[in-house]
């Protein structure tokens, strides 16, 4: 059987309906957006993120600049990728890399602030696919018996990259 090493990407969408720590991150990143927006536009010319990017492509930098407010929240996850669980209901994915993304925002209205955090998992071995489930394993030294995670393919979760082993 040919195995591949894969990196999964989980795109976690956060909007005004989000609760818990996501709500805190939502409001803090909106506050940060209001500060950083002025780097590209002062006054009342623009309020929407999409308008600003259309007028000045350099405003794409806001994804990164606003992520400063997400920094503390991401760090508190301690490298554990949230939400996604294996078929036993257990979290098992870890991450080191992420990308903060502004989907749309309005400096006047926090309710129109929609963001995403793209979590990139640490590499896993993908052995096979059974039904809708990926058979994955952490990189393990013992090749005689491999302990597997079964992971359901689901919306906002995709295979980001692959490398033949």
């Amino acid at each position: 059987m040919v195995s591949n090493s894969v990196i999964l990407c989980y795109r976690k969408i956060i909007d005004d309906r989000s609760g818990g720590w996501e709500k805190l991150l939502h409001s803090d990143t909106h506050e940060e957006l209001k500060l950083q927006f002025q780097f590209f536009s002062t006054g009342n010319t623009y309020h929407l993120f999409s308008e600003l990017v259309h007028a000045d492509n350099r405003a794409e930098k806001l994804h990164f600049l606003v992520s400063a407010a997400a920094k503390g929240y991401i760090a508190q996850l301690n490298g554990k990728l949230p939400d996604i669980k294996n078929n036993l209901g257990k979290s098992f994915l870890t991450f080191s890399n992420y990308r903060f993304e502004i989907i749309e925002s309005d400096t006047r209205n926090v309710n129109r602030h929609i963001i995403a955090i793209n979590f990139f998992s640490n590499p896993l071995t993908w052995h096979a696919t059974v039904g809708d489930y990926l058979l994955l394993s952490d990189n393990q030294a013992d090749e005689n018996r491999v302990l597997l995670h079964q992971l359901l393919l689901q919306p906002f979760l995709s295979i980001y990259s692959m490398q033949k082993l």
Partner: protein
Amino acid sequence: MERKAFLKNSIAALGMGFIAPLTPACKKSDITDDNTGGGSGDCIVAPTETAGPFPTKNPSAFVRSDIRDGRTGYLMTATITIGQVSNSCAPLAGAIVDIWHCDAEGNYSEYGSTQMQSANYTDVHFLRGRQVTDANGQVKFTTIFPGWYSGRATHIHVHIFNAAGNSLKITQIAFPEGSGSAVSAVGGYNKGLNGYTYNANDNIFSDDRNGVQIATVTGNTTDGFDLKIQLNVS
């Protein structure tokens, strides 16, 4: 209550725990035991593992004095004083001051517009930080002496906001040059100073005839450097 809704509410309560006393709904005794055979209402199955981690409120991660995040170079303490021209340049307290600069190799922490480009969460914001001015209008950062890149003199970017978050000024700090200067002592780190752009030829600083953007920099490569400058806003 749906399990999902219960989890969401619990998470909300946990998340707010650091800024408000825990609500009665979050008491341990409220977590229902397992094996209740799928009852209704609030009788729900407890999670089989510790759900989480759930970050707590942390709006201040970017507010920090040490902005190095592991970047190596000659230690530098930057003290920036914000003055208000409309108040005879008296210190402005409560102003928000963001700074950012490149590392010893001349690279900034940032990712571009490539949609799927990612960065490591532990150091993605290296050499960037925010402080709020004290009663003396001062902020202090611990950082490294910046490197340089083609086309620019050594510099630090600064964005100053008032306490309400309104942008007051976006500017840059320049460094003194010549023999005995920190720029010459550091010597451009491993790059050397071949091809270095001096202030007089720098697009940003060449019009600064009075040197108001040039900081005072003392110290040496052994003990580190001290940078001091007053930046005035209108």
